[in-house]
């Protein structure tokens, strides 16, 4: 796995074509096709993935998640950045533009 690039509010991400995200109830399972690898994602992660569309800056995604979940901005940012860094390293998402 390659080190994940730094993320910022300006970062725009997209889900890689080789990653298949399947929602299951409020959660999701990801299949990384090239590696035949599955990942389980809990509710907030699944919602975050749903908001990644290749156009919306990460700052807007964080704002949307803040509206939907009862969590502090600091906690949410730390969790989402860590989650996305893992997904970048796992070849699930990649940076479209902005860092």
């Amino acid at each position, binding site marked *: 796995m390659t080190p994940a690039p730094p993320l910022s509010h300006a970062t725009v991400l997209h889900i890689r074509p080789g990653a*298949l995200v399947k929602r*299951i*109830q409020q*959660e999701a*399972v990801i299949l990384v*096709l090239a590696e*035949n690898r*599955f990942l*389980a994602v*809990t509710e907030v992660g699944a919602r975050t993935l749903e908001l990644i569309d290749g156009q919306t800056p990460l700052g807007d995604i964080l704002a949307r998640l803040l509206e939907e979940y009862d969590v502090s901005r600091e906690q949410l940012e730390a969790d989402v950045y860590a989650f996305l860094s893992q997904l970048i390293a796992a070849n699930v998402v990649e940076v479209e533009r902005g860092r």
Partner: protein
Amino acid sequence: MLASSDVLLTLSRPLAGTPGTAALIAGLRLRASQTIPALPALRPSPFAFSVGYSSAIFAPTDVFPVLSLTTLVADTPTEVTCHVAPAGITVHATGFGEVFIAADGCRLTWHPSDDLARQRPELILGPGLVLALALQQVFCLHSSAVLGPEGAVLFSGDSGAGKSTLAARLSALHGYQRLTDDITPFTASASECSLLPHFPQLKLPPESQHPADAPERYPIARLYLLSESPADAPVRDEPVSPSVAALSVCRHAVASRLFPESLMARLLHASTALVENVEVRHLHYPKRPGSIADVARLLGTP
């Protein structure tokens, strides 16, 4: 992979031009290049035809590898290569032979390479059967299953987790009908989740296979994911989050390492459909005398 087992399938000698045969496996029609001898779970198909033995599978330009790995086959480190092409999938195990599965999953050609492969055809034929079913939207789960009051109850887990023992003892001691021992074919969609019991259970003797005249399918009522538990802990079950349950089904799918991307995607859809429509729970099952009775109580009266 279908690993070491008693010899249950014995092949006629693979001769060029030998007529093929047809079988029903997990309720699906499968044409084979060589005679698959009668097994209770492999019944003759009502559809008569013949298929010639062929060594020319497809043009090399159509082929690209899905994987190449070294794994244990019959306790022997073996190079296994899987190729996919528009015509179908080929699995080659060095020293054991090759099996080709047509893209529609309805036709199978295999070439055992030596005496061992002929004596133990399941080593190369087994993955072929699993791939053939998968291409027809039926996946195989590493699990055992019994028939409970509301339908099939599956016990899935890693090797040694106790799934075969559970099914065997629930059957012998508590009156449950064993449906599968180690490999459970299933189909899952929003409208139906069924177990298809007519599949060779390679670790069971012929007399313990599912009866040929038994139903083609059973509704799946529940899936238990077996978890290790200390010997002095009580038997208990608990809910599983849907993503973890789906992940477990995907990970315990038989021979999925051989699946091309299209089949992996179908497996993901089938696994999520199964989890969305069937109750899935963790079963903490300590291996000690008496725990089977506790599991039977959890399941209710057969």
